[in-house]
């Protein structure tokens, strides 16, 4: 996650409290999802960004996970997410993110 977005998330966590936040991703590939999740739960693994050493413990989901997509109204889901759900392999990301959420 780039440093600018890490800074925004840190500011939002200060403003609202990290326990009141959830992150939803839209990654096209599983590569990198684990780093995203680690950054907002345990802190920036590169120890270079604003979230270095900051364990916010914010739960992370992918928009195509059943827990999220099932809540989107049918018509919007068909219009905006159906095509993505055909080309994006969500299962590896679901496994990584569910493991991350279970550790919180």
């Amino acid at each position, binding site marked *: *996650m*780039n440093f600018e*977005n890490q800074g*925004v*998330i840190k500011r*939002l966590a200060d403003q*609202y409290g990290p326990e*009141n*936040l*959830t*992150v*939803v*991703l*839209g*990654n*096209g*590939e599983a590569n*990198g999802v684990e780093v*995203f999740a680690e950054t907002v739960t345990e802190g920036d693994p590169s120890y270079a960004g604003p979230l270095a050493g900051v364990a916010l413990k*914010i*739960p992370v*989901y992918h*928009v*195509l996970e059943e*827990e*999220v997509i099932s*809540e*989107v*109204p049918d018509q*919007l*889901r068909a219009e*905006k*997410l159906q095509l*993505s759900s055909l080309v*994006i392999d969500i299962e590896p990301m679901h496994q990584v993110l569910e493991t991350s959420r279970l550790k919180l």
Partner: protein
Amino acid sequence: MQRGKKIIVIGERDGVPGPVIAECLEAAGYEVVFQVTECFV
């Protein structure tokens, strides 16, 4: 996904872009407080 939480959306240009995720979640009744689209090229 737990109700009542404020949502931070981090979309991806080659996946699902931020504005699309935000639109879908707001229609589902969630409050999106930040959305962005990252690009890894």
